[in-house]
């Protein structure tokens, strides 16, 4: 009898404790982000689809040397690189070393790629097949690939996920150029308003 009462008391107490915890939660701050209205803030390290890195000289021209290693390395076969000869003035005498498996059963083979000899005519990523493993980025001998932070990428059409990365790079470079121009125009306006500001900075 006494045992039963203690048991019942214990059970009711544990339920009351639980009610206390959910009850307190009612008055606590919410822990969710109401997504379309509020901004998701922790995407700084987000790794979206890959994108091409522009070369130092011309940000609209990819660093890619069209060695095709990313194609070789990709587990899902979602990268297609079409090769073209680069303009002669870009040709250097520097080589970088790449490795390829050259078929399935032979051991890894090394080959040297001349920087600036070839360039990608098209660089197409089928994002719908990509598993974001990063093998292409890690194995690019020219450092021409990186992950974008392109998080909000939605579509109902599969075809929208086939990205021409060279076009994307050109677009990004154009955007960056326009932003730079706007910034300079802004600066120039400020400079003309206040003669103390340095007005002698020229374009590039």
């Amino acid at each position, binding site marked *: 009898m006494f045992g039963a009462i203690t048991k019942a008391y214990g059970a009711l107490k544990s339920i009351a*404790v639980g009610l206390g915890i959910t009850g307190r939660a009612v008055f606590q701050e919410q822990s969710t982000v109401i997504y379309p209205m509020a901004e998701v803030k922790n995407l700084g*390290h987000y790794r979206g689809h890959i994108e091409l890195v522009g070369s130092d000289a011309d940000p609209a021209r990819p660093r890619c040397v069209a060695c095709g290693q990313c194609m070789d390395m*990709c*587990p899902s076969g979602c990268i297609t690189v079409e090769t073209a000869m680069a303009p002669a003035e870009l040709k250097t005498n520097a080589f970088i070393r790449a*490795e*390829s498996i050259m078929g399935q059963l032979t*051991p890894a083979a090394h080959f040297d790629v001349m920087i600036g000899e070839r360039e990608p005519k098209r660089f197409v990523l089928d994002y719908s097949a990509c*598993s974001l*493993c990063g093998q292409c980025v*890690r194995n690019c001998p020219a450092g021409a690939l990186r992950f974008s932070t392109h998080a909000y990428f939605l579509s109902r059409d599969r075809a929208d996920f086939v990205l021409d990365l060279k076009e994307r790079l050109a677009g990004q470079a154009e955007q960056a150029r326009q932003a730079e121009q706007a910034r300079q125009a802004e600066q120039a306006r400020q400079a003309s308003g206040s003669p103390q500001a340095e007005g002698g900075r020229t374009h590039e």
Partner: protein
Amino acid sequence: MSAAAHVPSSPVAHSARLSGPVSHDSLVVSMGPQHPSTHGVLRVVLELDGEYILQAEPVLGYIHRMHEWMGQNRTCHKFLPNMGRVDYLHALAWNWAFVGAVEKLAGIEVPRRAEFIRVITCELNRINSHLLWWGAYLLDLGAFTPIMYAFEDREEIMDLLMRVTGSRLTYCYYTFGGVTADIDEGFAAQARRIVSRLRGRLPMFRDFVTDNAILRARCEGVGHLTPDMARAYGATGPVLRGSGVAYDTRRAEPYSVYPELDFAIPTSDVGDCMARYLVRMAELEQSLNIVEQALDMLPEGQHIHPLAPRMVTLPKGETSFAVEAARGKAVIRLRGDGGPNPYRVKLRAPSFSNLSLFPALAKGTLLADAVAILGSLDLVIPEIDR
């Protein structure tokens, strides 16, 4: 039973894929492949007498992707991203199992710093996995709120792991000879914050759920698993440790820097669902300890061996490499034939063995108990079906 006696006695028995004969006045129901408590696409065919289970037979293969075939038809590098998809809740354990097996067979060295980074991230991932199990188990038992609380903490850990791996769930972070990205001071500081935050949350979890009278009533004395049975079915992980066997791959087949770390293996002699529950909750604390220690001991150095090959060629021979995943012993058996593709990759999934216990455990219990038992085995279906 001989093969001849097994010929199905009625169309019902055949379509239901039950192994035993079906009585004419019992109810055969198919739990799953779409059912709230099978968490994914598992189907369990049950023969019921009222609510008592006469026999239960899991039917697998709904998410079978033949990882082993993929493994032997592509290079190790190309197969590596698959490992995050085997057990998506403890992806890093499978990452490690495969990477470790290849390193063992091909003789690739791993820098000490990378080993510590692996320990830290793998344990964080284990915490994440156990937290999700906790929430999902309570969901099976009819409590809706715990999973939300678990996800608050999970989100923090996922944010942290995203910092280095770039992904939130299906990581592909370890690579042959190290890890793909180094961790920085910010990572360490954030990890310590998460550890101390979780230490503060665990007592709340205990008050809210573990001590709850209804949970105790649902779990205590249900699904009793004896060590003998666990051995017969090859159960590992918390399922085995809940039956009082202190078998943990991190100690039994020491790998990486685990021998240098001080942590306990929680066990319980009871062997019921509650024991498995308590073991997992205690493991959360142990994993927090491991993360903290590993952060303290983290040496300077490289995160990937400078001579780590970009292209792995497997020598002839075979090897096995086992890691302790959140669900138990995950083993990769790898056979090389001198080429870049493995000749054979075998994935030994802990959930596979643990689920094979289920028919024996569920027999004679109530339907609600079967749900509790299924949940307490902590199954990840893609790992079972592979």
